[in-house]
């Protein structure tokens, strides 16, 4: 099987050599063999022990290589996630790339006022509708942590808002098993029943270890449920290099890989063949400010490595794009978000989230979201690479035009000029024409685009029956609160 990143004839990036991949894999296995993990979940611990893992008196569980290799071989190499119209929307395999937002930012950078404030329910609904309208965004995460909802119900309300305001698939965060069950019930209502949902998943669940090397109860409980229900799921370490993982990028990859593989083993033991999304991220601890910083070169290097490892294991990959640590939508934000988006795509990361994150995920910016939509469109053009067929080499056109002529009037130009990349935001006018149109920068144009899309774009509504079923799930959850 071909394990290198390929976009047909297009551009692709390799981060690790074959020997480096082996070295990382062996180190991760040694971490799981020799250092072990803490498994805070009885069923998961019992599954591991029954499969040959050893737990010592201090409670550390050590995984043998054979078990790790068994799990890698069991998990499917591709996952399809569907939109709510029943269409295959995310083809997570090989070097395919997909982009979506991040979840649960605490603050909303209001594009109208520039104010940084907590999210309300209408803010989240409008933001999700905007994602629905942007052609380069493939999926949605909850974007904002609403301030006007009981904290214990936020994850359920977020899913309802996502499914109401976009047809695109979702990646969800859930506090616990009961929350996942309710989200799955809402998704089943949309899909046409739990059996159809099982066959054609509408959402991916995000789970994580607590680094270093701890598998917390809630994460494992959700992971086991996802395995049982065949809900695509990840087990993604959010590394804080220098604090929760080694300070070196390679050390971080080795440990994050070990944690992901530990999750994979538990997951496959519960239900062999259930869909698992392999990946993790790194926001190194800045040793001066004590902040977790996003989108630094170390993070990009880690993402390239995990994409190569994912293809080596034959697993679909999970990562980041379009995010950073800038506090506002400024040049730093654009540099960070664009570098992450470009390199993530070149590395062939299957599912990249966090587009629109500022401030390492505390604040969300719709302006960055809309700008990144155009960046992704540029990147996707690049990924297609160079077409060197006879028609595109255009010898016939060169022959027709000959020395001293021009191509403007040639039929070849007429045939192909519409294939050129076109901006949705960037300005290609000359100076005078640009001034005549108001002489405004891209920030203003982005603001206008947001206002226009939010005023006009309306995704197809849910049927009253489906809406009723969703409301019933939410009402039941609210009534269950004490």
């Amino acid at each position: 099987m071909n394990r290198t990143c390929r976009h047909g004839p297009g551009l692709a990036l390799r981060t690790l050599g074959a020997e480096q991949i082996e070295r990382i894999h062996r180190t991760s296995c040694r971490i799981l063999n020799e250092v072990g993990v803490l498994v805070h979940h009885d069923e998961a611990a019992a599954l591991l022990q029954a499969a040959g893992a050893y737990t010592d008196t201090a409670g550390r569980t050590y995984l043998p290589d054979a078990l790790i290799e068994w799990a890698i071989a069991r998990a499917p190499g591709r996952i399809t996630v569907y939109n709510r119209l029943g269409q295959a929307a995310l083809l997570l395999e090989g070097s395919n790339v997909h982009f979506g937002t991040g979840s649960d930012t605490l603050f909303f950078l209001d594009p109208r006022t520039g104010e940084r404030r907590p999210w309300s329910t209408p803010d989240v609904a409008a933001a999700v509708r905007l994602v629905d309208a942007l052609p380069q965004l493939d999926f949605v995460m909850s974007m904002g942590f609403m301030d006007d909802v009981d904290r214990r119900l936020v994850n359920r309300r977020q899913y309802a808002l996502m499914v109401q305001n976009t047809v695109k698939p979702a990646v969800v965060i859930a506090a616990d098993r009961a929350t996942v069950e309710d989200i799955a019930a809402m998704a089943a209502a949309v899909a046409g029943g739990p059996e159809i949902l099982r066959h054609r998943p509408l959402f991916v669940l995000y789970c994580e270890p607590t680094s270093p090397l701890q598998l917390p109860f809630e994460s494992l409980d959700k992971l086991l449920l996802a395995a049982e229900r065949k809900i695509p799921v990840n087990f993604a370490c959010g590394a804080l290099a220098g604090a929760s993982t080694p300070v070196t990028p390679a050390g971080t990859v080795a440990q994050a890989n070990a944690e992901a593989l530990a999750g994979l083993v538990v997951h496959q033991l519960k239900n062999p063949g259930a869909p698992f999304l392999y990946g993790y991220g790194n926001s190194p601890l800045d040793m001066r400010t004590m902040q977790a910083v996003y989108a630094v070169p170390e993070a990009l290097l880690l993402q390239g490595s995990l994409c190569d490892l994912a293809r080596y294991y034959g697993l679909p990959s999970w990562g980041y794009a379009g995010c950073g640590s800038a506090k506002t939508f400024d040049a730093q934000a654009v540099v960070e978000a664009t570098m992450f988006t470009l390199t993530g795509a070149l590395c062939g990361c299957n599912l990249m989230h966090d587009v629109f994150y500022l401030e390492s995920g505390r604040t969300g910016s719709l302006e960055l979201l809309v700008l990144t939509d155009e960046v992704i469109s540029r990147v996707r053009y690049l990924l297609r690479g160079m077409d060197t067929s006879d028609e595109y080499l255009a010898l016939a056109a060169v022959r027709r035009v000959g020395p001293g002529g021009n191509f403007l009037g040639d039929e070849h130009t007429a045939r192909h000029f519409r294939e050129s990349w076109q901006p949705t935001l960037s300005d290609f006018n000359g100076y005078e024409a640009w001034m005549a149109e108001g002489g405004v920068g891209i920030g203003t144009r982005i603001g206008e685009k947001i206002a226009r899309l939010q005023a006009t774009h309306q995704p197809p509504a849910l049927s009253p029956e489906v809406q009723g079923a969703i409301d019933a799930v939410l009402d039941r959850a609210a009534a269950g609160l004490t």
Partner: protein
Amino acid sequence: MEKYEALAEMVIKGDPEPVREATAKLLAAGEDPLALINEGLIKGINEVGRRFKAGDMFVPEMMRSALAMKAGLAVVKPLMEGKDVPTAGRVVIGTVKGDLHDIGKNLVVMMLESSGFTVVDLGVDTPVDAFVHAVREHSPGVVGMSALLTTTMPVMKQVIDALEKENLRHTLKVVVGGAPVSPEFAREVGADAYAADAVAASEICREFCG
């Protein structure tokens, strides 16, 4: 004073073993424990704090220095004979029940210890009762609570309610922090302050214990 200065220098260097040895040697030579702490160990750690603020030292170096200072303190403490070890204040701190994340909290502990506070660290996954119990036992000026998960944040309110119920709330200040915590949330649960990061936490504690 020179002998104390050498000790302070060792704390700045951040090597626990030489600090332990030098402290033991000074005590064996009959030096005053209190002067040794003030003029040696604390002087060293104060210099570390100053250099960190100026951007000349970094977190891992400060962490090593805090360890070195604690190594020295451990040698002196038994000789204090019931006298209080000089402190900027006493802080009880923990990551709340259900949450295993401790890096942010550990950074706060390190900053506080480097600033001369006495810290009682309850660790991670700390039950409500453990906070109450620790407050009774140690009478701190500040209780600090940390959470990284949005799902464990409500436990902070349970701790504050429990302190209220046990009639302990008025004896101390409550400071909360962690990635999903905000000033609004701190107000909502009835905390006295929100600390955005470890540096802010130590400044707030200094203010509350001053």
